[in-house]
């Protein structure tokens, strides 16, 4: 079947159908990524506004408690949902999956296009909440009732409504996208591309998408029920209460029901962010250390195990919620069990570096930064998962430090690493190396300086989500000075991100031409006939995969990598299951 025939379903393409209403996964990926990065910059700005108040309390008169809690809430929701989830699944997922599995596009291109525009709509609805009477909600990203819909919390009249509507719209978009990613992985792999030959990037995004499809419904359920409580007077989550001196009409509802539903979504959500990061970083380390990822099958099983286990740990967010205390035993146990496959992954990343051939490119810098920051973020999770250790630490800065390290810092370092890594494929040019290194060092060292000391503020007992800490005797003045220091570092780190945005745009025009495979990587996406790949990706013939994606430094091979679609005579096949395969390093 000639290549031309496959695409006679398009008439001549205009600018609009090629770049705006595009059904090409690569264009959609860039649309997702661009929107996510823009909204992420808003999230960074909001965090800086928070830090202005925390570092210089009372100095900035426009930051009163109402605005402060609105900044806190919108910062959290934007970063978790509208930046990280959209970027990993909609951005990286859309771009990488078809190319890495050898497909021409996603299996439902029209639905894929719709999913971006619905996501954009959800972002717009969220931004509109800044402008409604009462402003956006200030209930914390966790939106706990009853406070989220009662006076006393900012945005309890309209802000919360728009937030919940925006989330519902986002969930529709995520479902449309998720159907695509899962079905494409299951159905559109090219010849020879078995599931166990796919790069770990695809595995991470694939399992994360399955989690997303099963977990977002819980957020949808809680959002719909809270909307009904707020707008139509139902009492799903609202017990009998008296607010601001008025006895309310609500009766019988359960705030804990919301928390169970929210965290049934919320915990898998953090793995929806983390699993793609795990997959991508495995590929970054492998390519830039010229060594096959250590224990590929165990890495796959670890991703699957983490995904499955993540569904049964949610109530570790509720140890002090007042739920049945005996649940604490169960959830502490499952939470600490999930540490085992996670630790295996860390060991395997380290063992990939071991006896590798480490090129310290900018992607590798970010990958190493990930290992270090994920180590600390993951290890502090062991404190919080162990129920009795969690009791004094819950809702303190220890929690804030933990989740920023493990969700805000390490996956973001992977986002950067992945963008530096794949930018040449997307655009045909390299990102500027010097700017990249400055960006890395400021971000890596800066986020350490911000979040490492924060753990200690949490152990001290400083609670989170506080507008001000004046007048508490147990908080020494040095802690307030530390807050000022952290704020200043945060402003510097935020500014450095502008360097990255500048680099992205500048390099489009002035970046050094990269050629088709500057990193000399083996996976399929680097083997496209055109760079950037054209519509349909592969030209007249789809590639055939003869081996796994990690044929690096194969003994006896002329080069230190063998492309996945190189002819079978080139060797480099994946290890037989159940057998150990190892040889000593062979000089080139």
């Amino acid at each position, binding site marked *: 079947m000639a290549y031309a025939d*496959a695409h006679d379903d398009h008439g001549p393409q205009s600018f609009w159908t090629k770049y705006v209403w595009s059904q090409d996964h690569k264009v959609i990926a860039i649309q997702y990524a661009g929107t996510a990065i823009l909204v992420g910059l808003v999230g960074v700005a909001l965090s800086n506004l928070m830090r202005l108040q925390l570092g210089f309390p009372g100095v900035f008169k426009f930051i009163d408690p109402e605005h402060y809690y609105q900044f806190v809430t919108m910062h959290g929701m934007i970063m978790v949902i509208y930046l990280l989830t959209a970027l990993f699944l909609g951005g990286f997922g859309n771009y990488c999956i078809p190319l890495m599995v050898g497909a021409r596009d996603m299996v439902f291109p029209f639905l894929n296009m719709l999913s971006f525009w619905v996501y954009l709509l959800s972002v717009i609805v969220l931004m509109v909440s800044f402008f409604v009477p009462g402003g956006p909600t200030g209930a914390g990203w966790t939106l706990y009732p009853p406070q989220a819909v009662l006076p006393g919390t900012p945005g309890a009249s309209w802000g919360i409504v728009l937030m919940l509507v925006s989330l519902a719209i986002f969930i529709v978009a995520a479902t449309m996208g998720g159907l695509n990613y899962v079905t494409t992985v299951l159905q559109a792999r090219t010849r020879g591309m078995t599931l166990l030959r796919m790069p770990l990037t695809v595995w991470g995004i694939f399992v994360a998408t399955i989690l997303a499809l099963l977990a977002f419904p819980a957020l949808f359920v809680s959002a719909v029920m809270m909307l009904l409580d707020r707008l139509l007077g139902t009492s799903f989550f609202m017990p009998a209460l008296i607010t601001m001196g008025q006895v309310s009409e609500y009766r019988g509802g359960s705030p804990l029901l919301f928390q169970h539903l929210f965290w049934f979504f919320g915990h898998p959500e953090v793995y929806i962010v983390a699993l793609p990061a795990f997959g991508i970083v495995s590929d970054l380390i492998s390519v830039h250390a010229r060594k096959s990822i250590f224990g590929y099958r165990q890495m796959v099983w670890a991703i699957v195990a983490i995904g499955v286990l993540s569904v049964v740990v949610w109530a570790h967010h509720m140890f002090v919620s007042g739920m049945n205390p005996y649940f604490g035993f169960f959830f502490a146990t499952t939470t600490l069990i999930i540490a085992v496959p996670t630790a295996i992954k860390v060991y395997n990343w380290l063992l990939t570096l071991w006896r590798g051939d480490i090129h310290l490119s900018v992607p590798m810098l970010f990958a190493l930064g990930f290992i270090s920051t994920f180590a600390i973020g993951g290890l502090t999770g062991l404190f919080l998962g162990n129920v009795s250790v969690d009791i004094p630490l819950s809702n303190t800065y220890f929690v804030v430090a933990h989740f920023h390290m493990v969700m805000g810092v390490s996956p973001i370092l992977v986002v950067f690493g992945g963008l530096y890594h794949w930018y040449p494929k997307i655009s045909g040019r390299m990102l500027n190396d010097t700017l990249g290194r400055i960006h890395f060092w400021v971000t890596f060292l800066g986020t350490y300086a911000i979040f490492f000391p924060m753990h200690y503020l949490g152990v001290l007992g400083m609670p989170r989500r506080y507008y001000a800490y004046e007048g508490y005797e147990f908080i020494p003045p040095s802690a307030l000075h530390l807050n000022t220091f952290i704020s200043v570092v945060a402003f510097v780190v935020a500014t450095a991100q502008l360097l990255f945005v500048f680099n992205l745009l500048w390099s489009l025009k002035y970046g050094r031409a990269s050629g088709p495979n500057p990193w000399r990587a083996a996976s399929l996406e680097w083997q496209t006939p055109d760079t950037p790949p054209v519509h349909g990706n592969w030209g007249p013939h789809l590639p055939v995969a003869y081996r796994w994606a990690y044929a690096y430094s194969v003994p006896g091979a002329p080069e230190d990598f063998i492309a996945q679609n190189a002819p079978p005579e080139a060797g480099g096949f994946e290890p037989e299951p159940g057998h150990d395969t190892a040889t000593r390093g062979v000089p080139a």
Partner: protein
Amino acid sequence: MRGGEALLRSTGVPRDGHEPPRGFEAMRGRPRWLIDPVSVGLWVFMGVATALFSLFLFAYVMRIAGGDAAAIAWPKQVWLSTALLALAGIAMQRAARTGPSRDEAAARRALIAGGLLAMAFIGVQLWTWSILSQAQVRLNGNPMGSFFYLLSAMHGLHVLGGLAGWAVAVHAAARGDDARAARLTRLCARYWHFLLFVWVVLFAALAGITPELAARLCGVQ
């Protein structure tokens, strides 16, 4: 030709109406996945919807264990709507049946009937709502009422979504694209059975899981 089909074409595989596209064989003699992507996509979506309704049911049990829920006398119309949905499923199954004895005209009639009966189901559900609201069962107040309206509304939305797919199938049949119509009808039939299953489970829960039973399930006295 739509994007999905262009994709299938581009794998260099001949495609006819009945035989599912091949071409994704793995090396090493692994079994072939003989399913088409839209079918897989529908299974995945059914998984998502199952998660959604399961979570609604979990919320239902947890909420009515609270002690302020009172049982509701279900109007007879609910049995009527359930029967209509079952009939719709039967009609769809008849429409989807393939084989040498297939009578195209009868299949087309059955397809139309399947859609009309689903629409009738929605109509009777709305009728049930109006009867309940006249009996002072409101959305706010008794949580049994809240959940009935909420769960039937969610289910109804999913039926409406199915009707959108049905409309595409009918359009394909009207245009004479029999292969596409047959494929879409099979998928509609599967989805109709799923909708019936979900509705039966929801209604069984609303009618059968009393506040006392829920309290015992939740370990609350």
